């Protein structure tokens, strides 16, 4: 097992063990917070919250991955090349927009519930994915394209058999950023009552119940970490036969929120 794989296993184990143990952790929290009576968040099952969280992130990220990479792909083809600067402007400008703002604007317009959160997550998730696709296709060496052409490959064949496999690590990095951001924004969707892991945090904050906040925060953090490590493990074999790993000094899209 590689280091990333063992870190992933450890993080996943911690998440599972903690989810199972927290409902019985009353005595432990009583030691930390002696002067409280409601120590454990019991309105929802933690496992249910994790699944609901993953469902909303998964659905929005899947849709965003399809549309975002499609748009970026179109802007790099000959017939869509004219629109590429526009797409880049849009991606650059949207950096000024915090993900939570998209959620906050979508909710009053669409109504309360999971739908506006899903739409907001989908919209914001498009950006890093499109960015990753653009950067990924840019990272394909021109020589590889020429060789493909020389072999008599059609443009579609070149795309599927040469460009996309070579771009895969960078594309995956974009997807990873998108999902990481969405996990954080989905937690914030609990401010409008959407059932995610943010619920214990929000309820805890509004009721001055620090144990609730702690329980939600630890689980959200572990979930984000586990998913991030899963992506790292997934991209490991892709990076092995080409070395596209960005050096730590290279500025990339910020992942927080």
């Amino acid at each position: 097992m590689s280091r990333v794989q063992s870190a992933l296993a450890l993080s996943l184990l911690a998440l599972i063990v903690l989810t199972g143990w927290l409902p019985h952790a009353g005595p432990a929290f009583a030691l930390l917070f002696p002067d409280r009576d409601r120590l454990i968040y019991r309105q929802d099952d933690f496992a249910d919250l994790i699944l609901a969280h993953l469902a909303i992130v998964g659905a929005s990220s899947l849709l965003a991955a399809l549309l975002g990479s499609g748009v970026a792909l179109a802007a790099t083809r000959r017939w869509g090349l004219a629109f590429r600067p526009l797409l880049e402007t849009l991606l650059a400008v949207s950096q000024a927009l915090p993900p939570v703002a998209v959620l906050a604007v979508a909710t009053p317009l669409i109504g309360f519930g999971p739908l506006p959160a899903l739409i907001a997550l989908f919209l914001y998730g498009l950006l890093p994915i499109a960015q990753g696709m653009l950067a990924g296709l840019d990272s394909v060496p021109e020589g590889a394209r020429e060789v493909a052409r020389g072999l008599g490959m059609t443009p579609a064949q070149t795309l599927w058999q040469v460009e996309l496999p070579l771009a895969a690590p960078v594309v995956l990095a974009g997807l990873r950023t998108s999902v990481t951001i969405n996990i954080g924004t989905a937690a914030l969707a609990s401010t409008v009552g959407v059932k995610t892991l943010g619920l214990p945090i929000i309820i805890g904050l509004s009721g001055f119940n620090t144990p609730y906040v702690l329980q939600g925060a630890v689980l959200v953090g572990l979930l984000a970490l586990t998913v991030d490590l899963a992506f790292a493990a997934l991209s490991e074999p892709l990076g092995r036969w080409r070395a596209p790993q960005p050096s730590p000094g290279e500025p990339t899209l910020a992942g927080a929120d």
Partner: protein
Amino acid sequence: MTWRAPVPGALALGTLISLWSLPFVRFAPNRLLTGDGLAWWRAPLGLGHWAALLPCGLLLLAWRAQSRATRVVGLPAAALWLVALPWLAGMAARQMAPEVDGLARVSLGAGFWLSWGLMALLLGELLREAAWPVWRRVLLWVGVLLALLAELSGGALDHLSLLREYANHQDAFNLAFGQHVQLVALSVAPAALLGASLGLLAARRSRVQGALFAVLNLIQTLPSIALFGLLVAPLAWLGEHVPGLGIAGIGMAPGILALTLYSLLPMTRGTLAGLQQVPAAAVDAARGMGMGSWQILWQVELPLALPVFLTGLRITAVQAVGLAEVAALIGAGGFGAIMFQGLLGSAIDLVLLGVIPVVALAIAVDLLFKLIIAGVARHD
């Protein structure tokens, strides 16, 4: 039929379609109702309806005119639209809800936002094609911005519900503005110092690099709400047991601490990247001239690393402006407080009052640093 300028053409067409198919303004008897949408041609704009000729003209230009003509006529037309559209909406609002303190509300509709946004993209596209130097492009945007600010302060938009919300929440708004700037400044400044030191350390000791970035990446991976939440308990404990500090689990302190932690990764990255791109030949030449390692650092490496370092600072500051929005959840205040208040009350105008200034602040910070970086780069 081929288009001479397909991208501006598509944007002008999009502007027209959104103007025609979506409500331009919304009228509601009171602030809690969403209200009924009024299309462009049904809104009381008087002669202002003719403004729709601007995107029509831009569409024609994009279809047939030479690129120079598109630029000479198109740039002022697009800029005029950006300034005129809010003014027209403000005029319509004055007609429909004449009393500033009445119950009736007129808010901006999707048609307004979309046709304004598409035209802003069109202006950006025309500017890009014009290939002007940075300062001239910035100047034009600043001009548009000043015109909009003049409309705002001149009272032309006072009858729109967004401005009515502002009038009702003016004190909270000003407080939020101060808190937001404070949150960003007090977290980015220490992060810049600490990040610069960490970046320097990483550049000198490559063995530390891996572990350092593993920790910083881990922090960046944590969702903001989780990091804020995790800091609440230890800081509350500290506040209770070490009284003189003035720290509490809720408020500015955890907000600033969390934002500082988030800012460390991009700052350290920027510093390291800046130092790594210093040409080895420059360092060699300095050593050949007999400079000591401190002299090389101060007089050769740091000046050469400065533009990349400043780019890191720009990314960090823009990120912090956005992240500070979430800090309102733990009572740190800022524009997030207004946004969440609007979100909980399902009042879109209040949400926008908490979101638009943040976006404007982020863009302003971004532009400011870009100008500084352009100035520094020109010196070299």
